């Protein structure tokens, strides 16, 4: 199969080709790429794709993966239902 058909972000259905397109358009940070194509913004919170994107960015930039700036880690750590957070305190 064409390497570009590989799905990088399963939650947002983003292929390697789409990722390459934004990198080639000039975006240099994970923060920007997330916001433009929503990679890593889905319910798994970047569990898979963030492991892959820094490697691909590093390839383009000719640096090591360690040099790629990681995006802000935002709470909660995993998805929680609003009613569970609201708990018993809800006044109906």
């Amino acid at each position, binding site marked *: 199969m064409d390497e570009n058909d590989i799905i990088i972000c399963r939650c947002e259905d983003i292929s390697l080709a789409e990722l390459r397109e934004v990198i080639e358009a000039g975006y240099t940070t994970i923060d920007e790429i997330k916001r*433009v194509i929503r990679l890593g913004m889905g319910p798994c919170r970047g569990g898979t794709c963030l492991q892959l994107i820094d490697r691909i960015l590093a390839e383009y930039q000719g640096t090591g993966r360690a040099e790629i700036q990681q995006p802000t880690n935002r709470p909660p750590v995993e998805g929680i239902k609003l009613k569970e957070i*609201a708990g018993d305190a809800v006044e109906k």
Partner: protein
Amino acid sequence: MQLKNKAETVIIGGGVVGLSTAYNLAKKGMDEIVVLEREYLGSGATGRCGAGIRQQWGTEMNCKLARKSMDIFEDMNELLETEMDIELKQQGYLLLAFSEKEMEQFRKNLKLQSRENIPSREVSPAEAKEIVPHLNIDDVVGGTFCPTDGHANPFLVVKAYADAAERLGVEINTFTEAVDIIQEDGKITGVQTDKGLIATDKVVNTAGGYACQIGEMVGLDLPVKPERHEILVTEKVEPYQGPMVMSFSYNIYCQQTPKGPFLMGFGDPDEPASFNRKSSWHFLEEMAKKTYNLLPPLGDLRVVRQWAGLYNITPDRQPIITESKEIPGFYMAAGFSGHGFMIAPMTGILMSEMILGEELTLDINLDLERFEQGNLILEPSVV
């Protein structure tokens, strides 16, 4: 990359207001425009905002700016020849009143809005429930609805303005910080950045939550304060809620974005002025309670992410869009008090007209002197 060392105008702040100003200036033919952004474009207030576009305001100035901006949002894909659709959704804002007193204020606002051709109307609790069937109307006294209010994607609006500005020759420098503004004999002569000096006699302060710091660079103590506001986003689901549901007294806004997730927030009345942009557990808990009570079925949605950004608040909750009387050449579009994104299209046009000395398209008076004179017209409709 080497910065330009000379510019006709330097715009400090690469959010939607700065980029809209840059685009409109370039479109009117100005050459040598430089935008400075400390991080990436939209990394401040724009990219952290609630993505709503509302015309139902309570002051004439905010109504005018919002109404004209909506016209521009409607045509933005064509106007800016966008590469990616800005995801405009116009399924309305439903504003809820929880007391007769609040409803009286809404009726005053409706009169004002009608003069500005904003198609808003009063709704009863039963009508509100027809518009949003899953709404708990137990304590709702009434409300107003404007069907053309809605949503646009702030990241893609920023990209649209940035791309269009670059095509017109604007130089946009990301990860470049304005460190100081240089003055000689009371006149601006340049902007010192962390990557070099740019000679210019015109500077525009569009620094959002950090506008006061840019003001300090020219010795102005701007009547604005940064204040953290928090938001959360849920997992995406099928289209379920058309309009934004909002209340000032119950203190909430909640909208489903076109791709499926719900965005929601409220303003903490005890939030101190600060540059704090960290999320809090307190917010998450309060937000969950408010939403589960007012919009019960949303209780089943999982929270995916929460974050915070800065409002830049003025004493009357209306922006400052003006040139400094004390320091000629220092322009400001700041103090948007939480609604900069939705009025940015018109703000950019007005700023460009002001800078070029043209007659303003809209009759506005949003200068600094109003705060000294003290006859402020307060915007009552802010979350």
